[in-house]
């Protein structure tokens, strides 16, 4: 049986209290939300934090709503909540596509949107989704609240813009009128991390692509996005050839690594193939 090393446990009663606890315990404290990444790592003793700050009681972080033309997803919103309601999946079916294939229902019942992003796993599905949507992360620290574009949020594998003593409060996603979105993932088995996955968001204007967002995960795409491929799409009418070319461009700019999910060349192929498919499905949904 796997058992973690000794740690202190604190339950935060409010965001200021959580920040105070983070300050008190310092950099060896970890915030626990759904715990579905952190707790297994602790049981395997790959992580040995001195203290856990439990933010499960912070209902102010569980908001899921539309404010000022923006979708606001609190960091404590559970995957299952995002999937169940139409608040996020209505304007952006990409959430439904992605959430349906994140882990399994048991994990989705507890795992949180903020936890997924803050874990910073290079194969995280939601990182690609928010990158495609050009979301903004809202972070609070001792110095106050700051906003970080999600394409600057991930600073490397397991490294994010959320510093010591800070807490991710929410993700804000601009709602684009008449946008289409989709997510395509290849996994070895349901619930597995992706071998590769791609998300796409498209908005047309006058029959040509006015806005394009492409998110990629598990393929070594910088900041989980594909700006060169997006640039290729702008101003062109949507179509199989232009999408295939965008996929090729996206794949060129990836740096996938071989592992037991597949060799690098296969993952690069998937980056192209899944980008193409996500774009095609996104445009069908406009």
């Amino acid at each position: 049986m796997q058992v973690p090393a000794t740690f202190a446990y604190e339950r935060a009663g409010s965001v200021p209290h959580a920040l105070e606890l983070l300050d008190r315990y310092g950099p060896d404290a970890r915030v626990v939300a759904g715990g579905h990444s952190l707790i297994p790592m602790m049981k395997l003793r790959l992580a040995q934090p001195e203290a856990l700050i439990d933010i499960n009681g912070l209902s102010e972080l569980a908001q899921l709503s539309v404010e000022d033309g923006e979708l606001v997803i609190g960091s404590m919103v559970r995957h299952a909540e995002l999937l169940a309601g139409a608040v996020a999946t209505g304007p952006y079916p990409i959430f439904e596509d992605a959430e349906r294939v994140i882990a399994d229902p048991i994990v989705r019942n507890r795992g949180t949107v903020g936890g997924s992003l803050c874990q910073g796993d290079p194969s995280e599905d939601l990182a690609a989704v928010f990158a495609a949507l050009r979301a903004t992360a809202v972070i609070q620290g001792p110095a106050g609240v700051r906003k970080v574009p999600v394409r600057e949020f991930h600073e490397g594998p397991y490294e994010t813009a959320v510093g010591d003593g800070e807490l991710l409060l929410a993700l804000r996603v601009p709602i684009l009128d008449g946008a289409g979105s989709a997510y395509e993932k290849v996994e070895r088995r349901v619930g597995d991390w992706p071998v590769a996955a791609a998300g796409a968001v498209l908005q047309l204007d006058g029959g040509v692509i006015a806005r394009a967002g492409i998110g990629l995960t598990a393929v070594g795409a910088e900041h989980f996005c594909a700006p060169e491929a997006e640039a290729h799409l702008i101003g062109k009418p949507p179509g199989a050839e232009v999408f295939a070319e965008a996929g090729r461009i996206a794949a060129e700019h990836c740096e996938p690594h071989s592992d037991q999910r597949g060799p690098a060349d296969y993952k690069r192929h998937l980056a192209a193939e899944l980008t193409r498919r996500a774009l095609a499905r996104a445009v069908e949904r406009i």
Partner: protein
Amino acid sequence: MSFGRMHRKEDARFIRGRGTYVDDVKLPGMLHGAILRSPYAHARIVSIDTSAAEAHPKVKAVVTGATLAGLNLAWMPTLSNDVQAVLATDKVRFQGQEVAFVVAEDRYAARDALELIEVEYEPLDAVIDARTALDAGAPVIRDDLEGKADNHIFDWQAGDRARTDELFERAEVTVAQDMLYPRVHPAPLETCGALADFDKVTGKLTVWCPTQAPHAHRTLYAMVAGLPEHKIRVISPDIGGGFGNKVGIYPGYVCAIVGSIVTGRPVKWMEDRSENLMSTSFARDYHMHGEIAADRDGRIKAIRVKVLADHGAFNGTAQPTKFPAGFFHVFTGSYDLEAAHCEVTGVYTNKAPGGVAYACSFRITEAVYLVERLMDVLAAELGVDPAELRMRNLLKPDQFPYTSPTGWEYDSGDYPKTLRLALDMAGYDELRAEQAAKRARGELMGIGISFFTEAVGAGPRKHMDILGLGMADGAELRVHPTGKAVLRVSCQSQGQGHETTFAQIVGNELGIPADDVEVVHGDTDQTPFGLGTYGSRSTPVSGAATAVVARKVRDRAKLVAAAMLEASPDDLEWQDGKWSVVGDPSTAKSLAEIALAAHSNLELPEGVEGHLDAVTVYNPPNLTYPFGAYICVVDVDPGTGQVKVRRFVAVDDCGVRINPMIVEGQVHGGLADGVGMALMQVMAFDEDGNHLGASFMDYLLPTSMECPSWELGETVSPSPFHPIGAKGVGESATVGSPAAVVNAVVDALAPYGIRHADMPLTPANVWRTIDGRPFRTDLAIS
């Protein structure tokens, strides 16, 4: 009263969470053990410093190989007459090997103390790829064995080499195929573990352990540790899945026992998931080269096979002594051919020991996979439909009992009928038409067939044993005065539903409801000797023993009934579950009435004992030979390599079905296993011997999402060698299904000229195969 569907008696406790597993057992004063394991696949141990761990305030004992060497317990025999290190003394030989054992007041402290043990290793080159194990200059893994200068374990062969070679020389058509059955793991949801309680006052050792073979464990503990056998009690409570993983004795069990003897307190050790996957019995790891000789009409003449068998660092496979490759030589399958020959070479590598385990019926899984893949390769070569090719070569009903070219005596069957039923259920012709239409549109659809025959129920004791213990099993049946019965059997259920099935057998023989029969198993102090549950042997052996012992009770009841009726026993007949005077049903006496009389003051004839209890030992006259026809339909996405199993038709013939619902449950589980092995499961290793499948993130179990709604059918060919005509079925689907799935995927890829791909057929593997660049699935992907 008898055979048929009934809910499992054990479900009442399982669905309420009221089962009792080893980890549920808590004894006063119980301590907890944890094992320090090797991070290296191959390294010399320079030194071990346990002083800091011993100084931990909650640590009660630290045991190392040196401690055990002092007790002559550092090495223990394996189930294949090799030896295995309990705790390493000289070298570590696989990643995850046991190095030290800590006993502490709680699990957390035990685990913490592991980090305080300092081991200095001198890393050595590792042998990871079995194909290089016999190379000149390969590192010698087993230098502990006197004079051992290579990694060779055994060469073994079966069949008629000269006749087989002759047929190959004369053959109109031959095909050959290399194939790998990769290393997989049974991965029971309950991991292994033990709770040992040595009572210094009475000298009695009690071991709670999820073992599939409690009696064999008891005897081996007595032989190895020198403890008197009557002072050893092995209790195997509810088991959360075994699949062969829980047959042998693991170092942790011995450590828990030593820990209890050393500390004088009960010691519990439960392994974690990674320990289970990294160190306990694996399955398969067979590198096979198969050839088939046929004429142009597709009549097969001969099969020739060479196998390189990777046994890991210690030869620990569980199998009868005569058969180092298990029952692999049943590889001629379900077909009528003239000759066959196989050669198997076993080698050591720097991987965990084990083998056989995982519902394989002693290597029949490998044999079935081999022959069923070869049949498809031949079909492709000849341009003959795979169903038609099988139909031309299947054994005919009038050939039974049939002696195979490698010496097996198949018991019964109508193979063509079973295959026809499966083809009809699948709508085979329509599927082929659909496939043709899809191929014309560039879509990939595959149809795969597997027709398997197993040899299960080991076995006749003159041929089959485990470490010299013959594979016969006992049964005891007590009938209480009110006609309720208690059956005691030697085997142990890991979820197979023995408490129900065996009660039904007794009920059927004695005319009482199955609910009136309590089945006791899994406690060596409470049950007769026998070798346990694996290789689908429970119903063929213990189930037969149950029928036989129940018939003994019935015969005893006849004498008592005769006394009750003041008639001659010769004038009685058994009708509708009662003894009555021939032709006079009004005289009928039920078992309950007879049982009460047997315990009463009724005067019994001279020489007739009172009571009805009986005992037996069943030595099977032959194995039983279940078989089946499986058809799998898949769709493959050429852009991603993803495989979707759309349909799966499984027609099983396991002779008489005692409880069809339980049989179907066993088949469902085995089919899911097959999908898992075919599509996602493998334990691969990198060049340094790092285990690349040591958690459920990396070693994938299939879920309902990967499984179609199974379509089951049955034919019934009773076994003439079993008292109720039953055959084992626990492993049929695991044995038969991987070939059907792989054949379906390969069939889908036929437009690319592909004739074979190794398991697991992950999206990456399929895509690379389409691209003509398959990779070794058992090594690190680069």
